[in-house]
Every structure is written in C-alpha cells, then in structure tokens.
C-alpha cells in the first residue's frame, strides 16, 4: 500500500519550509483538478501533498492601474472572471479562465496550477505569455522572477527547483489601445483539450501595431512564443495582410506532433487560422479597425 502525507500550511514561510523538506516528493494542491487525477492514475506515490489554498500570498487577487495584476498562484478561475475590473483590463486572460474545463472545474482550477502542470496544451499559458506575465517564485533561500515564456521547459516539467514554489503571477497594466485574445480549437464545443491554441496581444497607435505578441498551445513540447509573429506585426499598418503574415509566421514556428488529437499538418494549419482570428479579435478589442 502507498501512503500520502497531507500538509496544510497557513503562511508562505511554512509552505516554503515544507517544500524544502520534501523536495521533489512535495506536490502543491490548489484546485487539485490535475493533481488528484494524476494521483488516481497512480502517479505521485508516497508523496507529500501540500495544500496551498490557505497561504495568503498564493490567494491574492489585486489589480492597480499602475501596478497591473497580481494573481496568486492558487486563485481559482471563477474569482478572476468574477472580478469586473480584472475582466475589463484583461479580456485575453478572461478568454482562457472561462474556457478551462467546465463551470465546476473553474470553481477550483487555478491559473498557477495550469502553468505549473506545464502541459503543452495549457490554455492559460499562451495568454499569459502574450500579456508578458512574470512568475514570482520563492524558496527558503529567497525569491526570483521569471517570464512566463521561460517557465515551461518540457511536457510536464517547469523551470522551478524541487524546493521552489510559484507564489504569484504578475501581469503588467494593459497599455492604452491594447487588446488581447485567446482562441483554441477543439472538436467539440466544451470539455476538451486544445488541438491548437493561439494567445495574442496587440497595442495600436496611428493605424499601426506598436506592439504585438503571439504564443501558441499544443504545437510544441512547451507553450511557444512566436517571436517572428511579433516582428511581423510591430510597426506595420493594422491590415489584414499584416495579420496574415503574422499568422503565417505562427504556422511556420509550430512544431506539432501527430496524435489522437490531430495530425501535425492539421495543427500547423490551425495555428495560422487561430492566430489570424485571434489577432482580428484583439484589434477590435483594442478599439482598432482593420483595413
């Protein structure tokens, strides 16, 4: 028989000490929508489950026009889309948190957990990358920051050391005339895993893209920031043709596999379609019009 320990720290310090003690045996329990499924499947045997739902720093949800968004790693999806100010400021993030799982899952699942699980298909991650989100990571030895696009390093693996904990995510305040969007493709309409996904953000000015970022889901071992798509956008006029070039760059950057969820060829094609559609929507959200 296998036993599992359960710990419920109430301070960050206590939490960090547990992770320092148990190292790779320690598994953070926030919503548990990934962890409990993995445990039932026989993973994480003899582990130490550390329930992080009672650590204040991991449950903070705060927005300021100058500071941007502080999103505690354990904050469940429903709190994010339930906050009117956050919803107005970050529609691209809202796209993902209202799409992950179903209503019941959204009551428990956290964006931080979605990120730490490091699935290539994680819906929240491309949106966070597009929004230039940064991870605040802590251990008993101190704190460090890491951009979200560097956080996932392989399927199911992230850049944190065994004794580190993701405390929160920080999203810069949305620039004027900016908009973001996340779209994914699934064969059904809900309750499914992305065959491909595209998270984008744009900032407009004088009829041009001042900034643009595109990140993809499910088409590489990790969520993928497509630098060349951003390059295709920046400084260019807000036109369909420019968006098409960025979409083509996304397609070119994707390196998907063929599996039961789709062929590689189909997924590359979807990257182009989704990037184009997401950029068109982001432009509208930024108050722009497409020529």
């Amino acid at each position, binding site marked *: *028989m*296998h036993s599992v320990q359960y710990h419920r720290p109430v301070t960050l310090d206590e939490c960090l000490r547990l992770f320092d003690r148990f190292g790779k045996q320690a598994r953070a329990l926030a919503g548990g929508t990934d962890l409990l499924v993995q445990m039932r499947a026989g993973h994480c045997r003899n582990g130490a489950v550390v329930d992080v739902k009672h650590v204040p720093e991991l449950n903070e949800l705060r927005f300021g026009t100058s500071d941007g968004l502080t999103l505690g790693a354990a904050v469940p999806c429903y709190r994010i889309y339930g906050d009117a100010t956050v919803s107005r400021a970050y529609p691209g993030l809202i796209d993902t948190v209202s799409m992950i799982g179903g209503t019941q899952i959204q009551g428990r699942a956290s964006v931080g957990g979605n990120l730490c699980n490091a699935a290539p298909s994680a819906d929240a991650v491309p949106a966070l990358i597009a929004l230039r989100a940064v991870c605040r990571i802590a251990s008993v030895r101190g704190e460090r920051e890491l951009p979200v696009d560097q956080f996932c390093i392989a399927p199911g693996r992230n850049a944190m050391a065994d004794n580190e904990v993701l405390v929160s995510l920080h999203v810069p305040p949305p620039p004027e005339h900016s908009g973001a969007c996340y779209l994914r*493709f699934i*064969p*059904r*309409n*809900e*309750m*499914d*895993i992305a*065959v491909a996904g595209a998270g984008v953000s744009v900032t407009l000015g004088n009829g041009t893209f001042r900034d643009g970022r595109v990140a993809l889901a499910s088409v590489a071992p990790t969520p993928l920031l497509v630098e060349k798509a951003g390059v295709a956008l920046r400084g260019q006029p807000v036109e369909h043709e420019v968006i098409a070039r960025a979409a083509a760059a996304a397609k070119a950057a994707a390196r998907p596999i063929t*599996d*039961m*969820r*789709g*062929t590689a060829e*189909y997924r590359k*094609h*979807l990257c182009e*379609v989704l990037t184009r559609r997401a950029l068109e929507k982001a432009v509208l959200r930024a108050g722009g019009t497409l020529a």
Partner: protein
Amino acid sequence: MTVAATDSETTGQDRKPGPAAANGYEPNMVLANQTFDIVGSRPVRHDGADKVTGRAVYGADVTLPGTLHGAILRSPHAHARILSIDTSRAEQMDGVHAVMTAGDLPDAGDKIVDVGEGDTPLAYVHGNVLAKDKVLYQGHAVAAVAASNAHVALEAASAINIEYDVLPCSLTAPDAMRPEAALLHDDLVTKELGEESNRRSNVAEHFRWTKGDVETGFARADTIVERSFDTATVHQGYIEPHTVTALWNHDGRLLLWCSTQGAFVVRDVVSTILDIPVSTVKVTPTEIGGGFGGKIPVYMEPVAALLSRKTGRPVKIVMSREEVFLGTGPTAGTHTRVKIGASADGKIQAMEAELAYEAGAYPGSFVVPGGMCVFAAYDCENVAVDGYDVVVNKPSCAAYRAPGSPQAAFAAEQVIDEVALRLGLDPVEFRLLNAAREGTRRADGPKFRRIGCVEVLEAVKNHPHYSAPLVGPNQGRGVAIGFWFNAGLESSCTLNVNTNGTVNLVEGSTDIGGTRTSIAMQAAEVLGISAQDILPEVVDTDSVGFTSVTGGSRTTFATGWAAHDAAQKVVDEMKTRAAMLWAVEPEQVEHSKGTYTANGSSATFQELAAQASRTGGPISASATVKPRGVGGSFAANIVDVEVDPETGKVDIVRFTAVQDVGKAVHPSYVEGQMQGGSVQGIGWALNEEYFMGEDGTMRNSTLLDYRMPTTLDLPMIDTCIVEVANPGHPFGVRGVGEANIVPPLPAVANAIHDAVGVRMQRLPMSPPAVWAALAKT
C-alpha cells in the same frame, strides 16, 4: 390522423427554444391513428423519484458484509502468446485472498451456447472471460485477484508476472483478410456460403444473398454510383461501468448482483461457463446506467463467482472507464462497398453491397443484420449482398443499438443520395419512388409485413423542417432512412392485486428506457385503472418467469404483451368475483374501463379488489409470451449542418428525427429514445473512434479523448413520431429503441456534402478529416 402536442411541463423540453419554436410548429409531433385511455399518455415514471434523488441502487452500490474487492489483470498487447503466468508474488501480498487465471475455469469442450443474441462456441465465451493460451486484444483479461480492498487488489494484479511472445496484429477487416495476416485462431475454419470450407483464415464467415440478377439490373441503369466506405470502431459509451458482486454461498447457491441487460442470460451463461446447474444461480439485476447492447455479454461474473468460491466471501469487481473501453465489446469497424444503378425515370434497377465487418477477437460482428438492413428501405428487383465476418485484434464486438445497421446505412444512404442528385431528383421523392412496402421481399429472403417506410418518408417530406430555408453560409441539409427489425423473444409478468385497488406488477426486464412504466401502462389500459395504480418492480431470476434480455427493442413490445395478457386474466378473475357477489354467471359480467356491470349491478376494480378476501382470496395472474408478430421500424432524419471550411468542424444546426414506432405507449420516452439514438448517431458520425496505434493499443481510452457529444454540441433534437400500428401486437407496438441510430451517420454525411461538396467516405467525419477532404477539392 391527429397531431398531439407535447406537454412541455412533463418533458422539460421547453428549455432551449430552437428553430422549431421560431417557426411556429411543435418540435415533438405525434402522428397517431389509434387512441387509447392510458396507452399514448404521459404519466410520471415510476422510477423517477429514486433516480432523481440518488436512491436508485446501481451495481456499484451493492456491498455485502465482508466483501472482498477484485481486480482484473489485462493484456498490454494486442496479440501475443502467453508463455507463462507467475502469480506467486501477488499471492504472498498482505490483504490478498485469492488469485485466479483461465486454468480455474472448467473445460469448455465444444459446447455451443446462446449468449443473449445468438449462438456461440463456449470456448470463445471462456476465452473472452479469461485468456488461456493467447491474448487477442489489448485489455484481454488474463488473471484476477480478490483482496481486502480495491487498492490492494490493483496492486496485487500488477504484481502478477506474465511472459508474452508478441505477435503481429491485424486491426481492420481488410488488414486481417490479407493472406499473410497472422491468424487469431488456429482452428477457425471459414464458413463459405453456408458450407464449411477447408480454409483457415481470419474470415469466420462469408455469406451471399441474391435476388434477381444484378448484372441485368445494372445494364438497365442510366446512372450507376459505386463507392467504398470505412467506419471506425466505436463504443456504446454507457455512463455506468460494468460491475458485479458475487457470493458463492455455503449452501451451494451462487448469488450475483450485476448491471446487465438480461439477468436470465447472465444466469444461464454463468451456469454454463461454470458447469453448474442453472437452478443454483440467482441473478439480481441492479438499476442500469445504460447498456445499448453492450451489457448483454458476460465478462466478470464468472470470475467474481470463482473468486468468491475460493475465498468463501462476497467479491465485488467494478471496471474503470479504461477497462470498459479496452475490455468490453464495442461495435464493429467496417469496410464496405455499395453500388446502385437507377434508370432515368428514377427507378432503382440494381443494388449491390459488399460488407466486411470487424468482429473483434471472436466471430460475431453483426454483419448478418447489417446485410439484412443495408437495402431494407428499397423495393428493388435485383439485389446482391456479400458479407464477411472478420476477426481482428480488437475487443470482441458486442451489440450496439441496431447492431450492424448504421454502418451499412452509412454506405447505402450516401450512394442513394448521390444517385438522386445525379438524376436531378429530390432525395426524399427518389426514396419514396423506390420505397419498400408490405410484401416487398428482401434479398435475405423474408417478405415485409405491414411496415411504415412510406409513411416515414411522407412525414419527412411534409415536415416543416424539410422545406425551411437554410439560415447561414456553409450550411447544408441531408436526409437518410434506416431500418431495424426489433425482436420478440420471451417474457413473463405477474400481477398481484392489492385490496386497495392497486396492482403490484412483477417483471424481469431490466428497465433501460422507462419500460417499467410502458409495461405498467399496458396492464393499466386493460384493467381500466391509472398507470400510477400499478407498481412495477424488476426482480431477480428466482422471482419471476424467464425473461430474455432487454434488447432488440423488445421490452415494451414483449414484456408489455405479457403484462397485457396477465391483465386480461385479472379481468376474467374479476368477472368471476363479481359474478359471485351478484349471483350471476361470469359470462354475464361486462367490463369497461375498470367498471364491472351485470343485471344493473356495478362495481369498480377497486371495489372488487377490496372484496377479494370474501370472494375467494387473493387475486393474482401471470402470463408468459413468446410473441411472433414483431414489427420492424423505419427511422429517418433531416439534418442541417454548418461546416467551418477553415477548420473542418461540423456543427449540427438543426436535427429532426422521424420514426415509425407502431404505437408510442409513453410518447415522452419514445421521444427520449429517438433523441438518444440520434445523439449517439451524431457522435459516431462526427468524432467517436477507437484511435489505435500500429501496435494495436488504444490511445484514447478516456472520455476526454474518446469524444462523445456533450449537450453543448447538439441542438434540441426535434421528433416526429409516426404510428403505423403493428398488427402483431395488441396495442400496435413495434419497438422504438434502435432504428433511430441508423440514419444519423449518412444523414450527417449527406448534409456535409450539401454544405461544402465533399463526399465523406470514412468515419468519423472529424474536423481534421473534413479539412483534409476539403483541401483535396
């Protein structure tokens, strides 16, 4: 003909107003031509309260004192020889009470058994329960453990060490039919056109039925379309996994509680497998969370029984979802070819089909009914049907709602659609011009009795949906028709009259689709009392006469008939009791709608029931039936789809199901059956498939990646109940559960063709498949 509206309060179908409401017609029509007092009404279901409050006892709810938990060890390989099995490590683990393998089963010999829907060699039934020398599919059960709890059992099962010699596998019929394909069964001799051949192959049987001469027919045709098609292996997808609890009692009786479509079949098959008298086995069917044909076979019951005998304790085994996908029978994947020729006047001159169905690991793919159904809707002089039953390295097929018919219809109804298009004819008119009628003979021999093929097609043509304009770009409309026979088999029913005028109804048919109520209503109609005054109960195999499986859409038809006959006996007895009270002859007593009269005296059913003790004691009657007047059912669909040409995703925009049910005893349940069959057909059409690696392992054995449609993927399914009374049943019932899954596959395909011009010849018509087909144009 009257059109009765659905009462939305009882069905809850006002939830999501679809295009139906907008267009001002009733989304649930009943085209009735015969009315009764109770039959045809919509009383509250007898099992409703227990089911909505969670009180209903399902298989996994059964726990006896001292229960041990079982686990099954399954093959990781699709095809392999078992070299050795070492159970020693598992046996020594703490908490493990027993371990067993195929060696613990009695010798099967060369016996033939009926396992619910046909005859099968017992050795195959044994082999599928626990593999002996070879494993034939991934998930094939090899060994089992009973332990103090489910975790220990799983742990112990994984500690059993099996050495395999992995063999090449065949995953599709064409693959397994190759001369060089590895044989699954060394002793399988191909039955060729009814004769034993001397050929050993993976083809268990090849049959051919002909009528007229297809060569002559095709020579007369002005337009000929020939295409081949493939369909994927799909699972019934019942939500409740298989469960069993077994107690081999010290008095020698074996008690089983399980989720099954047929308690008596489990009793008979288990007693045969274990080589014990049938009377020693008592099976209690629990409430069932879906079956669709998949809960007819016996899987874990003999294993739990033997583990119980070894340990002297009750043993319970519950499958996981993965085990359900890997270890239980899905329906056949198929490879088919259909050729149809018609003359310029729209008359079909010749029809030819070649059907190769995957049986899975053991023969019995349901290609025979597939061949019987493929052209059942058409009256054509020249027909030829070839069928091949092919074993492959996948789980052994089980029945799935109209087994064999949907795959055949996917081929035939697309070719029909294409012929109609080429001739410039409306697809419904073309079908009407060639529709099967009473007296039409099928290629497999039988002549149709009274059927509703024409009436169903007329209802499609007249339905507002058929003439409604499409409402967006990339939309298309498809129609198709399908057939299923339905079954009669055997049923029993007992009625016990209570002194307050209610009646306990005892029956043995697992209630899958609301049959407690539809059976009770038929008794109520005869007795002239309300459906609510009948208290139906499904009991164990010791407590009611033999009753065949809930399958073949037979339960409302046949067990309902037994209830009808038992009720007639109660009426006769009531007349005798009234005659006694009134001092007249029983023949003088008249009965109408629950009131008995003679010579000016009158008494109600309730009044006579109250006097039972004074007139001779309890009133009770039983009836058993083996009815022959089974009526086949035709079902048709009108489907609107919208295709996203950039992603290949198909959305079902509007869907109307039309079906001849004979008589809808409880129209709400009939609508539920029609909607359920439609939804399963849509899932089969669009996304469901066993996604197999080349090594024969299933890659999507979860409900996440085995994509059944959710409510968000479907419009409200509108229904149109057509009632062409079956002259072979007291109330005209035909059976409604199955024909409705047949037309959705081709109807959706025809709609996709109408929308974007591609002919989908392979299932599922998933987004990547539709996109790839579009990219080729």
